[in-house]
């Protein structure tokens, strides 16, 4: 089961889950992912220790996609 999560005030919220590309859950996840991008979030796929990939479209094959906020110098 793949998951789309957003880091937020609750720690993190699961926005969508899907099992295979093309199913209705995945389509809902894509819509949710786009909404988050429009809200200013950035999509990231953790690729194992030390690596992550920024994505602009929801990758169906990813186990976990995390939505994060932009960072800035303090």
């Amino acid at each position, binding site marked *: 089961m793949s998951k789309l*999560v957003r*880091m*937020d005030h609750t720690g993190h919220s699961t926005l969508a889950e899907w099992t295979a590309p093309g199913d209705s859950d995945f389509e809902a996840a894509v819509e949710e992912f786009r909404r988050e991008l429009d809200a200013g979030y950035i999509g990231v796929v953790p690729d194992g220790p030390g690596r992550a990939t*920024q994505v602009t479209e929801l990758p169906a094959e*990813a186990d976990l996609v995390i939505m*994060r*906020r932009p*960072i*800035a*110098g303090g």
Partner: protein
Amino acid sequence: MATAADTHLPELGAVPWRPRLTARSLRTWGRVWTAWTVLGTVPFLAAAVVLFLLEPLSFPVGLACFAHAWIIPELYAYRGVNTVRPKDPRHAMAEPAAQGLLGDLLDHAPRALQRETGLALERGRLGVWLVAEAGALLVAPGGRRVHCFCVGTRERDLPRSDRVSHLLLALRTDEEGSATVANRAFSGASWRVRRRLPRTQRPALAAARRAARDMRR
């Protein structure tokens, strides 16, 4: 079909005037900091010696000069370490969930170290990072120099571990870009940083220095 975005952080668009940080520019920055520290301390040390040679009774002024020469680098190091100093607990109710996500992003040893010290150890190309909620330390290859960066998410209602996760994910996406976006707070000897670091965080610096010693310069 999913597509990967540009490997450069989108946040770089907010600082277009900054040249992209590289290992070379980082070394140059370190040397500039060292030169700046020397310029800020040597004149006071020289003044103390000269005053004493001219008039030994002027030693109180000389002592003040020595104190000034000692305090300046200490203040710089203090400012650098402030970037990773633990902040007041916020959104404690959400912290367990945030800690769970952060734990999933880390290997066993860095996860245990993060829970003990609050700093997430991350090996990069520029050195070994210690990521906190509002900044990061970068231990340069060799382990003798530490660069301090002030950086974080502006989102106010995130728990502590989510803030660390934000920086960790940005770092893993684009290490040089993350360092470019961050504000540089200090660069200096690791012993100077260690002295100013809270005792609870010192094991993380020791681990990062060990890892950095194994890196080729």
